[in-house]
């Protein structure tokens, strides 16, 4: 088990990529701290994980100043420090720029980016960890253009840019910082994003990825690797897990 003895905090853990990460980490021997808004779903996921000692924390990352310190405090109440942090929480509203509003920009940046920075800030404190691996779920939207996703892409571009500086800043403190850039992954988020597309349009979308739409587990596999000792020489990396999307 590649994550034996580890304890990983995962945001967005109640569904999609976050849930898949929680399941993979638990199956690889890690204790998992699951964070998401939906309490009921969170408890369901936690109770279905292999192993024991998993913790579920219901929190809304729209108010990171208040909730992030509380999340990290609760995560370590069992006396065990964290060794990994995965930020899989995110929102992806498809909004043509002609309709964008500041309130919406603040919302998406708060969940997707500001909360990540606050999580890192509190994760690296001695009360929470003694070094470890940080993984942000970014997106290929950060480096390729998609209609209606300029705001979302902005948040992922911000994540990508910060990853490199964080990796440099935290290396001598024993932290590695990387991001994973998925393309279209078969999740509820993708269903919401493509809700107004017809079958032909969805087929066109699928053709952008030589390997078709990915599964959440495909991303979780890469997350587990980046959390594991096997990736000990990898930091500051933006890893596409995209079915060949960026190869075209």
């Amino acid at each position, binding site marked *: 088990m590649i994550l034996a003895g580890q304890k990983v905090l995962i945001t967005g853990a109640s569904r999609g990529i976050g849930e898949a990460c929680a399941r993979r980490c638990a199956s690889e021997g890690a204790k998992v701290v699951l964070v998401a808004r939906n309490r009921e779903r969170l408890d369901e996921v936690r109770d279905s994980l292999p192993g024991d000692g998993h913790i579920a924390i219901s929190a809304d990352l729209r108010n990171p100043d208040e909730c992030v310190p509380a999340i990290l405090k609760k995560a370590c109440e069992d006396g065990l420090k964290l060794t990994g942090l995965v930020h899989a929480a995110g929102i992806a509203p498809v*909004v*043509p720029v*002609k309709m964008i509003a500041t309130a*919406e920009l603040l919302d998406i940046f708060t969940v997707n980016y500001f909360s990540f920075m606050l999580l890192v800030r509190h994760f690296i404190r001695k009360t929470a960890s003694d070094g470890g691996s940080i993984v942000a779920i970014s997106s290929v939207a950060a480096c390729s253009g998609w209609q209606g996703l300029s705001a979302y892409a902005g948040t992922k571009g911000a994540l990508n840019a910060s990853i490199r500086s964080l990796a440099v800043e935290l290396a001598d403190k024993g932290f590695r910082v990387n991001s994973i850039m998925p393309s279209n992954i078969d999740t509820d988020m993708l269903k919401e994003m493509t*809700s*107004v597309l017809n079958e032909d349009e969805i087929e066109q979308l699928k053709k952008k990825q030589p390997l078709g739409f990915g599964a959440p587990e495909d991303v979780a596999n890469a997350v587990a690797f980046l959390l594991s000792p096997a990736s000990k020489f990898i930091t500051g990396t933006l890893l596409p897990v995209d079915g060949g999307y960026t190869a075209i």
Partner: protein
Amino acid sequence: MTNEKKIELLAELFEVDASEITPDKKLSELQWDSMNMLGLIALFKSELDIKLPAAKIRGFSTINDILEEMK
């Protein structure tokens, strides 16, 4: 929200003059494509705090169908 404001927002969405946004205007005569459908969802959310399901939008055929949902 005033009727005038609703018309103004829809004119912005469809990138036409407000005078073209009349209740009986067919959406097929405007640029009723997936981007504008998503723009409409965003408009309802930010201006009216209403979550507009995609299934409902696909049933719209005139401006009046949209105006009815804006009440």
